[in-house]
């Protein structure tokens, strides 16, 4: 499989570090051969506050960052201060630029508002966009990173954690994983 640039928001990484406290799963995802993770400056700063950041520090430092341009500045006027502080603008703009350059990308975005913003303004990114739950489903069904039982276990841990997601989205993903 060819190289895929994965551009996650901070909640994806925080989910594994703090919400379910299972950084080893994140390390496996990051180590998958076909993925190159792009972690921007703000997202990096956000996740570095986690007490478990040391588990993934080396991996994050090796991730691409593309800091030559401050892509997120394009979107600063359109998003809230809270969204800016979480780096949502940086994630969307980086995904747009990488997609424009012809790279195969996966944009992981969990918050509803920024997702709607992408849908309204950058329709070309919609089928490249997924949430943490959808991405875990892909990790089993498309990429084979996790075994069926493992991925279902991760989703159940997420369901019982403080990660904000509707229970029915998790149930649907579990059903999809059982069938694929």
């Amino acid at each position: 499989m060819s190289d895929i640039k994965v551009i996650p928001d901070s909640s994806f990484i925080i989910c594994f570090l703090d919400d379910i406290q299972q950084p080893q799963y994140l390390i496996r995802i990051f180590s998958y051969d076909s993925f190159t993770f792009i972690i921007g400056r703000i997202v990096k700063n956000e996740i570095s506050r986690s007490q478990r950041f040391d588990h993934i520090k080396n991996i994050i430092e090796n991730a691409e960052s593309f800091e030559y341009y401050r892509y997120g500045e394009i979107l600063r006027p359109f998003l809230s201060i809270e969204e800016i502080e979480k780096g949502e603008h940086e994630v969307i703009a980086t995904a747009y630029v990488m997609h424009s350059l012809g790279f195969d990308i996966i944009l992981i975005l969990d918050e509803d508002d920024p997702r709607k913003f992408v849908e309204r303004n950058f329709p070309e990114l919609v089928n490249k966009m997924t949430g943490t739950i959808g991405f875990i489903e892909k990790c089993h069904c498309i990429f084979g990173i996790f075994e069926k039982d493992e991925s279902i276990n991760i989703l159940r841990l997420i369901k019982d954690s403080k990660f904000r997601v509707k229970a029915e989205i998790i149930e649907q993903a579990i059903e999809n994983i059982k069938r694929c």
Partner: protein
Amino acid sequence: MRKSCGLLNKLEILERYIILLLGVVDRPIPSILHLEKEIFILTRVHPKVSEYVTFIKHYKGPYSEVLNDLIRNPIFYPKAYILEDNKIYLTQEGKKIFKEIVKEHSKDEKFRMLLAVLKMIRELYDKLTEEELLFLIYLTYSDYKEKSGISDNLLKGKKRREIALRLLKKGLITEKRYKEVVEGYV
């Protein structure tokens, strides 16, 4: 684009940025104000562009006299773009120059990223009316309100809510941004 910058005059480089901004999307830039603010946003994304253009506080937000002069009277590429009914069009000659610049730097990844950045700026900011554009600029870069004669009118009372709601309905600001702008304002 910077590799050959040593040989180019600063104004020529700035004209090239204008040509690139015009060329990345096949439609005119809606107004001089749009072009000016789109280049301003570019300086925020890529601060090195500030070596070629400086924005000052002015009655309509960030303003550059040099940029305004070059939009009306280009020096190095006099036939590259025209101003008509306040819109800025890339001419056939301008399209050729655009293609030449792109070809010249086609192997430079940073240049290709720059083109994507410019395209993203055009795709979003072109959708704004002049009023919406100034509204968002004043909200985001509040320093530039200082010498403005119109920021109070845009940012206060009923007008503030009206523009914010219009932007929300157009899908150009997020719900959280809308709430922040409207509810955070007393």
